[in-house]
């Protein structure tokens, strides 16, 4: 799909779990081929131990995005060749 292009300051590729939207179902944790997503020890305001990026290992494959049932909970950032 035509994806939005933005300027970022972190290392690419990467992913982000929008913690306050995560319901802790764990499907991204299960399906990430790189096993680079984990559960947080913290509860979010919905009362779930949300998923979070371990900080390294993401290949930008997008599998977590498609396995996540919550429309806005996961963002995947891929490198754009300049």
């Amino acid at each position, binding site marked *: 799909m035509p994806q939005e292009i933005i300027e970022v300051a972190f290392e*690419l590729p990467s992913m982000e779990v929008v913690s306050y939207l995560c319901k802790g179902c764990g499907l991204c944790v299960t399906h990430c081929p790189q096993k680079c997503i984990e559960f947080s020890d913290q509860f979010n305001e919905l009362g779930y131990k949300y998923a979070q990026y371990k900080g390294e290992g993401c290949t930008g494959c997008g599998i977590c995005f498609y396995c996540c049932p919550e*429309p806005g909970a996961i963002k995947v950032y891929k490198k754009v060749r300049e």
Partner: protein
Amino acid sequence: MKASVLQKPKAFYDKFERKGGSQLETTHYCPGCGHGILHKLIAEALADFDMADRTILISPVGCSVFAYYYFDTGNIQVAHGRAPAVATGLKRVHHNGIVISYQGDGDLAAIGGDEILQAANRGENITVFFVNNAIYGMTGGQMAPTTLVGQKTTTSPYGRKPENEGYPIRMSEIIATLEAPVYVERTALIDFKTINRTKRAVRKALQNQIENKGFSFIEVLSPCPTGWKMTPPDSQKWIEQNMIPYFPLKVFKDISDSATPFTYTDRTYSDSEVLNILGLSQLGERKKVDQSFLENFPTQNMKIAGFGGQGVLSAGVVMAACAMNENLEVSWIPSYGPEMRGGTANCSVILSHHRIGSPLTTNPNVLIVMNTPSLDAFEDDVVKDGLIIVNSSIVDREVKRKDVDVIYIPLTEIASRLGVVAAANMVCLGAYLEYTKIMDYKLLYDTIPIALKKKSLIDLNIKAVDEGVKYIREHYPRS
């Protein structure tokens, strides 16, 4: 560094108003629910095709009932199981629209089983997404038509038994046997491979509609961790181990490439054509409101009763239409058995200056009885000082009540002298209006041509009205 972002598709609303408060971005779905994944795939496809503004999404009854809170498309939520029927109407009117019927297994395979089969069989140019989670999720996990043999639900606590509840229905297989559907596939939402397969199926099903190819049906095996009492990852495994062996994932039918595209022609009707179709071409301008007539009009709670075929119902229609022409509020409700002739029939008619609440007249102030059983049935219901008009040709007894006004008139005899027994009802209306003077009886002349289907009988019916008036003038003169 520049990054491309894979994120919430634009065909979703920015905010989801369903839950309010601080939860304006989450769905109402349980953790791990397949609906969210399928929603995402559909929204992404609509955004990529730039079709969201042309899409009408129909939400069912079930967990996905609130889909209209999420999709930034046209949305309609419909009665249980009726989405394909509503989709049919929508698509036929808005054939440039992309009409999506989104349904669960209770909705589609149980209560809406026939709607989906008929829509598929007609080959409606719509896209149906069928979310099969083998359970009634929203109502708390009852057995659905697709519940597996042995599967425990709240209504099959020892597991579904075929000898008692039958076998799970395979909807895709059934629909694929029909001639008309162009694309039928079953997919699942259990891992990236199946989700990706579903993504392609969703796109193809929508593309078929965009190209007017016809009916596409995608069944999606979807986890219900709450209903199945499992963790989300376990429920995906459960689909793989238990559902897929019974509900195999495959393309059951695909004639998309050879299907002849629909061609639509825009057909509009002018006002005069519509009036003509309705038989209202003679209808004149709306009459000017006569305020003093309206304000002095005594509300008529009428019950007209007799045998079917005596014109009981049409007498009510003519009376109501006549009063409507005079700007009164009116209602008409028929009540009859399955017989076209010979059964009993009655109708409630209310004519009033005031707005009408219930259209039923349980205590009429005007009772017209065309036969004896009707007098027996309704005599006691008439209010004190009410009026009873008795067809004395047929009714073989007198009215017992002493506190009501009674007119005896041989309606059937008078009508039969005119040559048509069925005109007794118009004799009666003439008599009724002449006796009560609530309206000029000549106003019926304008209404009869509108209400009467057989135009050759108009003159005769007008004559029948005059005969009723004449009888009242001779036998019940008002000094």
